[in-house]
């Protein structure tokens, strides 16, 4: 099989990328487009570190073939801030100490984005359920939950 030129829309920008059929969304983002904010941890769909949004839905980019994302909207961690203005979830993660080593952070933030887009006012339990697939070894998750709840409040009060 040979490479196919495929259109991907990443963070609102259209890319024509020559991709091999076996390449995953994570491969293309990291190796072809230089968007290394999306991390590969387990590479098997167990940990959530590689979470990106495709047409608004959270997916494991390490398991999703790039070819299946043709013409779809992919949102990665690099697409959240507007210029130097951070997204409220990013600000909340920083302010609440929800980031330690930072390796799972992109995935946590993207999973939180998917949750808050769908449910702007989640309960603590709903946050935990939405992020259950995103493993973290540093924080004990406590400050991640606090950050997501704080971000939801900020967004409801008019932040984006």
């Amino acid at each position, binding site marked *: 099989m040979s490479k196919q030129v495929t259109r991907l829309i990443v963070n609102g920008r259209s890319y024509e990328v020559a991709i091999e059929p076996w390449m995953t969304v994570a491969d293309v983002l990291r190796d072809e487009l230089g968007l290394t904010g999306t991390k*590969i941890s387990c590479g098997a769909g167990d940990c959530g570190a590689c979470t990106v949004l495709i047409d608004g839905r959270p997916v494991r980019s390490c398991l999703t073939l790039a070819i299946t994302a043709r013409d779809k909207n992919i949102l990665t961690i690099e697409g959240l*801030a507007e210029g130097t203005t951070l997204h409220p979830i990013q600000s909340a993660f920083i302010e*609440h100490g929800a980031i*330690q*080593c930072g390796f799972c952070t992109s995935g946590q933030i993207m999973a939180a984005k998917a949750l808050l887009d769908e449910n702007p006012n989640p309960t603590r339990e709903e946050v935990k359920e939405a992020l259950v697939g995103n*493993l973290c*070894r540093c*924080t*004990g998750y406590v400050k991640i939950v606090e950050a997501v709840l704080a971000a939801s409040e900020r967004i409801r009060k008019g932040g984006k």
Partner: protein
Amino acid sequence: MGQEFSVVGKRLTQPDGVAKATGTAQYAADIKLPGMLRAKVLRSPFSHAKVKRIDTSKAEKLSGVEAVITARDVPQKTYVSSYTPPPKPTTPPATDRGVFTDKARYVGDAIAAVAAVDSRTAKQALGLIEVEYEQLPAVFDVEEALKPGAPVISDTAENNLVYETVYPMAEGDVEKGFAEAACIIEERFSTNRQEHCVMEPHACIATYDANGNVTCWSPCQLSHLRRRTIAELFDIPLGKVRLINPFSGGSFGQRLGIEGEPIAIALAMKTGKPVSLEYTMEEDFAVMVTRPAFKYTCKMGFKKDGTLIAMDLDVTGNNGAYRGAGALNVSLCLLWGLGAYRCPNKAGSGCAIFTNTQCTAAARGAGNPEVMFGVEQVMDLAAEKLGIDPIEIRLKNIKKVGELSNMGTPIESTAQEECIKLGAERIGWKEKRGRKREGVVRKGIGMATGQHCSGAYPMLLEHSSALIKFNEDGSANLVVHPGSPGTGIWGTLSQIAAEELGIDAEDIHIVTGDTNATLFDIGSHASRSTYCIGNAVLKAAREAKGQLLERAAKMLGVSSNDLEVKDRQIYVRASPEKRISVAEVCEQAAIRSGIEVEDICGKATWHPTNSAPPFGAFFAEVEVDTQTGAVKVTKFLTVADSGKIINPIAVEGQMEGAMQQFTGYALTENWQINEDTGVLETDSFATYEMLSQLDMPETEVIFVEKPCPSGPFGAKGAGELGGVGVAAAIANAIYDAIEVRMKDLPITPERIVRALKVESCA
């Protein structure tokens, strides 16, 4: 108390927060250098086997392959991956590990490696390397490995004994102590290995230039020590080796040593091109070091009133296939266990044993959580036998100021008593302990204490150095080497520097993680960074501040003794309106003073003379399903004395993270190999179960901030303390619920059910 702080103690954000929240922080696998090759490693499928013949010719011919190397192509020297030296020079330790091996000692041992234009090609080439192995009998269990006639694993030990040790601080007469005891408890415990589960799979990059300089991007925690390891292994002058820490996706002790770095360097030297080596997570699970497994006997004798009067500990550690920091953990177990409480008669011994399993190193706590799992259960058993409350027996035996810490230095400050009492009150100990046990799901509450260290002095060399140089705008660059372990240490060190210099934390710019730029430093391990590196930073800041004030004094026409600096302003104490900004002084010093120019720069080395133990009390509430054996930790409370807390957010995060790691260690994280083949069966997050969001208990962290006299602004270590008593408190809570002692980790549902059956038969 009562000292007013401007920066210390504030809930400030981390200097690297934005980089991490926006995905721009670069980890090793994110770095791409021009012409960079990708490497893959061929690993032994057998736990013990000789390489009889190896043929790389087909792999070399594959298009895109640039180099294939084996044991023939690398220095014939050996090394120890995670060696940490003691304070006094001693004979160097035996080394036993090569870049590659021609005798595999565990499943995953490195036999050969390929560098190719991309990782798919490299992987394909691995399949073309032909290896003929001669399988040897293997041994995985420590008792089996010690039997006469057991397979000999290491070239450095005929009997599979890595080393034997006795407790160096033995006291009194242990036999006499036990003879006088009203109550003696002796129990045998076992703890399993634990994977560090660093979320970032191991990755590193190496380059080798025409001038013979090696540069390696490595996530290791002890860069300056590992630079020495690499220079010696490859016989390269030390100044030509440079280690750079990219951001590191977790450490927890896994990264004390080097793992893929020598392979990447060997390939870079062979090809002259940059080489990136990324492990898969399966590879990481199977090949990277783990927490060692221990078996130990803990015997403690008490007077009728609960006073501990005799203690004996005998510890055996499963070291794995090669020497490293894992073996040292046996000595540490003795220090932690025998030093936890005041005891006039105590002794201990231990040994570490080679087995055909993956290597071990320190993991967060380095033996302390392991051994306290047993010690704290014995304390509870004694309390029960003597009819004393578990809280009371501990209050009776904890150490006070002036007594020797677990590391053997005089305790300067302790709030352990306050921690225990406050925790007991907060959790409702009196109301909840010893409730009626009925129904299928039973509730229990348990506790444990903990004493750790702030650096492993005097066991290990623990000095640090820092350099602070002011910029013309009044900000300062802090050149210091904690590396980037992801613990929040950058913020902590910034706050210490800013407090002393009278500027804001955001005025401090950290320069770190580059052995060419930073002064020699041990690095980050043993909860040393806040205390040891923090003290070096404080000392350097004082030096820089002295220069700053001298300069300001001349400009203001006063004596420097009359000056204060706060909020970026230097002012005369008696007449604060007479002032000048830090920025003005720095600008004048650097640019505007003709021949009077100078660099305002403080440099300091700090060496500890105390281990400054942090203390804690740990409380767990559990629900045990007596039918399924499932244990749910419903609440976990940690009360910690880490001295003055420099940044509460960071230290809370350490304690909360420890609850995740050690609740998993206690209950679910169950490292398993195939008993016949030695192949790791738990090599993924699907099979090795660490706690998710929904598995976490309700958590609470309380600090008792008693300043430590020798700590920077009164601070002590924190990160490792958080894990010390977690498994012990959970085990004690399980006993409170079901009256069954669980002496083996992890406490799986199967073990609970089995233990309940045994109990009901008895």
